[in-house]
């Protein structure tokens, strides 16, 4: 009941023409960003953060959330029409979306993807409103020991799930991220580490330039490296542009299940939309009656993937708001943006700004309505956008990658950071190292470092409380289980037992 009234109050507070204007442009921009290969949701949110400094708090957060939701949805466009996922989140969408487009049912596929995305986000919003307040209260019981293990768990599970068939690379990416976070002034004694007598390193490596490099510049190089895609035409197609109610009704269980799976995947730290989509897709394939059509143009597969990836967005906001631990890479940027705009995410949020979670839920709802409207009304326009040649788009994107991080601090050093992360990120990506644990490592490095040392100081150097406090013990057990599952023999045995998972992109 409290949740409902909080939600209602937030709805009234945000309902204005100005809000509608921000929702409209930011979501539309998000859909464009998501639909263009080379522009990811993370990069969109990171670049847009640099443009929101001068905005009022609520408007700035609203714009960023609309960009996030729009970009995750927009990725389905290029997945369906080009067979190139606009964002990694849409890799599973391409499996069934592209075959549908080749069968001349591109618009139907896009309509269903729109409905799936909107419904998935709705399920996620519901769970956000229900789960975030109790989780926020539970987080108040977290001490240094628990926060240390939570951060370690985030890195381990993110490495495990995003590393695909080879989790070791995920772990290495996570450790590299943590190492980056060790550069500069540390949080307990203000001792400067690893600055190599170079002054700009004293403040550490900022998250935004690192992320714009790893997700922006690296993506540009990936796009230039990849062969050009070919857009499947939609002109002259007589296919419907609205989803059929009968389809949605037929797949109601798939939608509900994918929504819940997506949200739960979102809650897991650093495990983003792509895993949400794959997990939902795999679950749908396992239980579907049209199992043999999966991968050849199954409407159910498409619905599962799109519902799953969109539900991750509200899910990822749950730990981001209540624990300051991002559920996905774009959520990591959102945390940075929240700090910039004077909001301190973490356990205290339910005490300091209890209405903020409901505000976020309403913002997500508005973004969802916007993707539904734009998605169904502007199908042809989005198909045209995909035809923008990469030699026109990529230099513009790189220009924004250069000036965006610079705008934050006005330091040329941040541009160099972006370039280094872009080049290293590209090489690591080519070698199948996932970027999400790396980013999570950068953001959680401070949490790991401070809480380990603070905990050890509190216990006078004794390690016992790290293992005996109840929440710590649970987290240690989860970390142990995750590590055991990354051993190839155990994984093979487990997947034989449970019947295998989805393919990984």
């Amino acid at each position, binding site marked *: 009941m409290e949740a409902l009234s909080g939600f209602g109050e937030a709805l009234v507070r945000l309902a204005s023409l100005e809000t509608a204007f921000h929702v409209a442009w930011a979501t539309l921009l998000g859909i464009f960003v998501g639909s263009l290969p080379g522009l990811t949701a993370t990069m969109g949110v990171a670049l847009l953060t*640099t*443009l929101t*400094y*001068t905005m009022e708090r609520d408007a700035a957060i609203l714009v960023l959330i609309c960009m996030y939701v729009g970009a995750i949805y927009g990725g389905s466009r290029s997945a369906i029409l080009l067979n190139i996922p606009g964002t990694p989140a849409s890799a599973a969408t391409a499996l069934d979306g592209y075959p549908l487009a080749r069968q001349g049912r591109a618009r139907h596929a896009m309509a269903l993807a729109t409905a799936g995305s909107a419904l998935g986000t709705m399920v996620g919003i519901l769970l956000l409103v229900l789960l975030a307040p109790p989780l926020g209260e539970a987080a108040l019981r977290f001490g240094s020991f628990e926060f240390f293990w939570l951060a370690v768990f985030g890195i381990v599970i993110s490495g495990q799930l995003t590393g695909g068939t*080879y989790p*070791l690379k995920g*772990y*290495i990416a996570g*450790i*590299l991220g*943590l*190492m980056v976070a*060790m550069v500069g002034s*540390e949080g*307990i*004694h203000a*001792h400067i*580490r*690893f600055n190599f007598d170079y002054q700009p390193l004293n403040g550490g490596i900022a998250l935004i330039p690192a992320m714009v490099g790893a997700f922006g510049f690296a993506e*540009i*190089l990936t796009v*230039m*490296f*990849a*062969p050009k895609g070919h857009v499947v035409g939609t002109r002259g197609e007589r296919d419907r542009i609205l989803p059929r109610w009968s389809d949605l009704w037929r797949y109601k269980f798939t939608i509900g299940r994918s929504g819940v799976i997506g949200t739960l995947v979102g809650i897991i730290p650093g495990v983003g939309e792509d895993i949400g989509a794959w997990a939902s897709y795999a679950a749908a394939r396992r239980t579907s009656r049209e199992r043999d059509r999966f991968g050849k143009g199954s409407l159910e597969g498409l619905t599962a993937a799109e519902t799953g990836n969109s539900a991750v967005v509200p899910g990822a906001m749950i730990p981001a708001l209540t624990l300051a631990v991002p559920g996905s890479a774009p959520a990591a940027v959102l945390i940075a943006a929240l700090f910039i705009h004077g909001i301190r995410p973490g356990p205290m949020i339910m005490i300091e700004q209890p209405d903020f979670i409901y505000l976020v839920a309403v913002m997500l709802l508005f973004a969802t309505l916007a993707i539904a409207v734009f998605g169904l009304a502007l199908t042809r326009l989005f198909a045209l956008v995909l035809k923008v*040649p*990469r*030699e*026109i788009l*990529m*230099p*513009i994107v*790189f*220009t*924004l990658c*250069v*000036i965006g991080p*610079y*705008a934050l601090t*006005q330091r*040329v050093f941040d*541009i*160099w950071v*972006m*370039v280094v992360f*872009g*080049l290293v990120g*590209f090489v690591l990506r*080519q*070698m*199948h190292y996932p970027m999400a644990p790396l980013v999570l490592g950068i953001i959680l490095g401070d949490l790991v*470092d401070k809480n*380990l*040392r*603070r905990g*050890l*100081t509190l216990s*006078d*150097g004794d390690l016992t409380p790290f293992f005996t406090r109840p929440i710590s013990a649970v987290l240690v057990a989860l970390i142990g289980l995750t590590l055991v599952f990354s051993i*190839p023999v155990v994984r093979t045995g487990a997947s034989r037992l449970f019947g295998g998972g989805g393919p990984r992109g």
Partner: protein
Amino acid sequence: MIPGPATADRISAVVFFALGAAMLVGGYTMDRLEIRQIHPASIPGLVPMILGAALMICAVLLFLGARRSPGEVAPAATGSIRAMATAALLSVLYAVGLVGRVPFEVATALYVTVFMAVFSWPAGTGVMGKAKAVAIAAGFGVVVSFAVSTLFRVGFLVRLP
């Protein structure tokens, strides 16, 4: 020539091992701040030491598992290294070489023009065709540079580099 996945893993394992060792030594030799009488368990080098050791262990596992790593396609087989290397070179020259040395507007116009001209170069056409391509690229570069600079300078009050 780009090494195959197993070789690349082995090379990167060696690099990671060295990085981990450097971090471990860096953490170990880091100032323990005894002069400030801090708790010995809260020395700044503690976490870097742990991370260094963890990366070294992962590097060893990566090296040992390189042969068993799943059959990934060598990057050379899938894309155009030339296009990627050209894009990387132009972008790095712009971001590190030009920005901060020449006015942002000029640097951006140059970068966008050259990038577009290089990647849409009409190899098979005559001088007129090539001149036209360069002119279009230059026009596009000026427009993009003006739009981005104005947006950040006037819209977001950023003093451009």
